[in-house]
Each structure stands twice: as C-alpha cells, then as structure tokens.
C-alpha cells in the first residue's frame, strides 16, 4: 500500500489532536489529545522508516511510547491533585493566576 496514505492519516490524527487541545475543556481529554499527537508522530516516524529504508524511525517510536508513559504518570498526578481539590478537571476553572 502506498505509504503516502499513512502519512495523510498521521497528519489527520495530529490535526485532530491539536484541535482537541485547543477546543476541549476537560484536562483529561486535552491530555488524551496530546497523546494522540504523539502517536500521530509515531505513525509518521514508522512510515518514514519504511520509505527511507532505515530502522531509526521504528526505534524512535519505541522511545516515544516510553516517554508518553512517563508523561502519563506525571500528568495524571497533577490533574488528579487538581481534581481532588476542586472536584473538577476543567482547564478553565483554575484561573487564580492573574495580574
């Protein structure tokens, strides 16, 4: 199958993720959208590894998965702490930081 299709798919996934970060209000959903962007990058890396004939891109995908897992640990810790204090995970509600 033509590798371009995979690239198009990765671009679509990345755009969905980026748009989601900008429009969604729940911190967990925003965070999932960031993960979607990382996975879109993985797809692009693996596709390019195929077209370029090197394994580097696949190696990157593995590293990104590990980093994404670490990011989940840190991110959920922060979001859960906020949720326990405010009973809401909205990214709009915490607005104490002002001039």
């Amino acid at each position, binding site marked *: 199958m033509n590798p371009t299709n995979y*690239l198009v798919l*990765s671009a679509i996934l*990345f755009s969905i*993720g*980026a748009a989601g*970060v900008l429009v969604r209000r729940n*911190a967990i959903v*925003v*965070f999932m959208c*960031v993960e979607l*962007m*990382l996975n*879109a*990058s993985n797809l*692009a*890396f693996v*596709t*390019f590894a195929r*077209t*370029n004939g*090197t394994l*580097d*891109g696949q*190696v*990157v995908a593995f*590293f*990104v998965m590990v*980093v994404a897992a*670490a*990011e989940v640990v*840190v*991110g959920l*810790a*922060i*979001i859960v*702490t*906020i949720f*326990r*204090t405010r009973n809401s995970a909205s*990214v709009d509600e*915490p*607005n*104490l*930081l002002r*001039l």
Partner: protein
Amino acid sequence: MVHLAVPLAETLTFPSFQYRAMAPILVVLGAAVLGVLVEALVPQGARRAVQLAVTLGGLGAALALVVATPASEQGMVAAGALAVDGPTLFLQMTILVVAIVAMLVVAERRVDPSGDAFAPRAAALVGSTEEQEQTRLGWTQTEVWPLFLFAVSGMLLFVAASDLLMLFIALEVMSLPLYLLAGMARRRRLLSQEAAMKYFLLGSFASAFLLYGSAMLFGFAGSLDFAVIADAFRDKPGQLGLQLLGLGLVSVGLLFKIAAVPFHMWAPDVYQGSPTPIAGFMAATVKVAAFGALLRVMYVALGGAAWEWQPAFWVIASITMLVGVVLAVTSSDIKRMLAYSSIAHAGFLLLGVVAFSTAGLSATMFYLLAYGLTTVGAFAIVMLVRGPSGEAGHLSSWAGLGRTSPLLAGVFALFLLALAGIPLTSGFTAKFGVFAAAIESGGVWAVLAAVLASAISAFFYLKVIVLMFFAKPGPDAPAVVVPSLLTSTAIGVAVVATVVLGVFPQVFLDLADASTPFLR
C-alpha cells in the same frame, strides 16, 4: 529465521561510548538515581542531610568534570547522539554553576516559619486537617532533590543533543520533573497546582509539535542525525513541504521552551505560581538549556536553511522583546514582572541566535551565563520579602523597602539594573555582545527594536527601584526575613557574578569566544 540472525550478527558494530566525555551527565543522572534510593532506604530524620550531600556532591563533581574535560575527549560521542564540543561544555558549565546556586536557595529553611518552600506532602488535600497535621509535625518532602537532579541531567543532555531522538528525550527528562516541582509550593497551593497543570498541558503540547516536526525532518533527510540533516538541506532539492513543516514545527517546540512570543503565555503563570526558589531555578537554567538546544538545531541541523528561518526569527525576536517589556510595565506582581522580563530577555537572546555567526553564538552564551546568575539572585531576594501569608508579591508592598532594609533593597536594585542592561553590570556587557552580533549580520531594524525595548524595560525596572527607595512604607509593609547561610551565599555569588561580568568581563568573553564552533 536463521537467515535473519546471521547477517545481523555480522553487520552489527557495537557503538563506542566515550565515557569520559559523557561523565558529567552520567554523574548527575547517577546522583539522581541515588537520591531515589535514599528516599527508599534512609530514615526520615537523616534524609534531608543525605539528599543535600548527594545533590551538592553530584552537581559539584559534574562541574569539575566539565571544567576538566581534556580537548582530546571532545567530539561526537555515543554514536553521534551527543556532541561534546565547545558550546556544550560552556553551557553545561553555566547550567551546573547556576544549578548549584539555585540549589542553595531551594534548600533554604530559615525563611518560612514552617519549613522549606515545599508542601509537606504534595498529595495532601489543600486545607485539609491532614495537611495541617503534617505541617505541625514538620514533615518535608525530600523527593524534591532527585527531581531537581533529573531536571539538571536533562538540561545537560539537551545542550549536547545532536540527533532528533536525543533532543526529544532530553527535553522530556528536563521538563517532566519541572512540571512536578512547579506544583509543590507550601503557600498558595491552589495557585501552584494551577501553574503545574498549565505548564504541563502546554509543555506537552509543545513537545508534541517538536516531535512531529522531527518526524518531518526525518522523512526529509532520512536520518535523525543533525549533520546528515544539514547535508540534506544542502544537497536534496525539493520536498519543500517536509522541509518547511519540519523546520517550523521543531522551531515552535523550542521557542515554547524559551518563552518567545507568541508561545510565551505559560511563563508568567508558571513563574508566579511555582515555589519561588523553583521559579528562579527554572527561569535561569531552562533558558540556558533551551537556548543551547535551539542554537545547535538552528546552527547545525538547519544551518543550510538559514535563509528560510532567519527572516521569521528576526520578526519573532523583535516581537518577543517588545511584547515582553510592554506586559512587564502593566504587571503589578513582582514575580510576574520578572517573568515578563524573562520573556523580553528571550527576545534579546534570540538576536544572538538569528545573527547566525560565531560572534552571535559566543555573545548568546555569555548572555546566558550573565542572565542566569542574576535571575537566580533576583528570585532569591523575592523569597525573602514576606507578609503574614507568605511572600509579598504585590509591587505596592515593596514600597519603602530601601529605608527598612537598605542592604536587601540595594542588592535587588543591582539585579534590576543588570537586567535593564545598565553599564558596569553584567547585563550591559551581555546585551552589547548580542546587539553587535546582530548588527554585523544585518539585523539593524531588530536592534533598533531592541534598543527601544531596553528603554521601555528601564522604565519598569527603575519604577521598582524608585518605589523601594523613595516611597514611604505602607501600613502593611512586609517583613524582610534574614536567611541562613545557604541563601546568603547564593545571593552573594549572584552579586559577585553580576559585578564581575560587568566590570571585568574579558576572561569570560574570551572563554565564550574560545568555545565557539559547533562540531557536527
């Protein structure tokens, strides 16, 4: 299956690791891992002392190793993933020096009546009886130190990273601990948690952009290595889409970390909400590390495409400093003001990056050293001026401080003058260097914008000085806490550095000059 195994075994050459060249990074990483073990194995009472020893020992040993790196060890190490060259060593030295100074401020316990700057347990509910009980028992979180060390090791990697994968990993190793540290303040915990969430969500958003841009560059060049990418920009015509997407998205990721406009929105919130010692640490060292990585990416990997990114970067640099100073004029919180001023400084530093010359490189590195030490000192001072409920952040409560505590106000005035770039302080030497480099490279308009921005910035820095020395103290004037030897030493080092880099900068200018060319 057999036919797969045989050629692999024949062709796989094991990469050589020059452990001496990587030693500083490995020592700090090792100290961080040791710190995690200390958390698990050392009894509560002795932990703080052990952690401080591990942290200071690790950072000090790494600094000694960086300074003593022999020229024969310099070169591409770890199969080309890291470049240990002049800029790497200079910036690693800067990061370690600033981190050691910042560490002393983080370790301060005399300032807050209930302990250090961190919540007894970050997981405890804000305002709960559990939290009050922990505060009463004097619990502290020594997990801060391993996190601190992991962040520093990520920074050391970030300035040395010479392929796209290492760049991304180093970025995350640097950022993830900082997200956590930002949310651990003892006072105003809601603000601190809010800062952590904003920093985390926006930071991971930006690193996703960096990663997707890396994928595009990988697709274009067929390799992750900066040198191969640079050759591809020279030799491979076409695929302009991949080139531009890669260049643009990678730049966005890095510009976010240095808080350049329009990716600066997180900085004031994060600086204001974080525990002040951590805000100082972040403001200084993250800037050094991120500019180090930006310099290497732009000069080495994307150097062949300089004609594509330079015009955009001139504009970004100009907008960054102008927006930074204008917002700083409007802010009434001291930490927010310092945050906006750090955005403006990112703009000045960008002038050295876009200059795209050896002079620009050495001027930027000197600027980072000068700015880093002054900033850590300024945030340490902010920590000492306290009202009944913690730090007195609002500018109005700084009125008349020059009469009640002239020493502290004088030192803070010195830092502000250095940040404004007044002659005989480090800020002047640093700014002069980047302006000269920018003019040499044809950025006259950007330098005019920079001079204008400097003039505006002098207004709000001097506003604070005038407020401290010529206004009457208000009824709710804050108390100035006398810190322990730790913070006093840190502030002393920052003062000495600010003066020495302003009056006798030649040694350090020569050092920066001698550290210039990037290896590839």
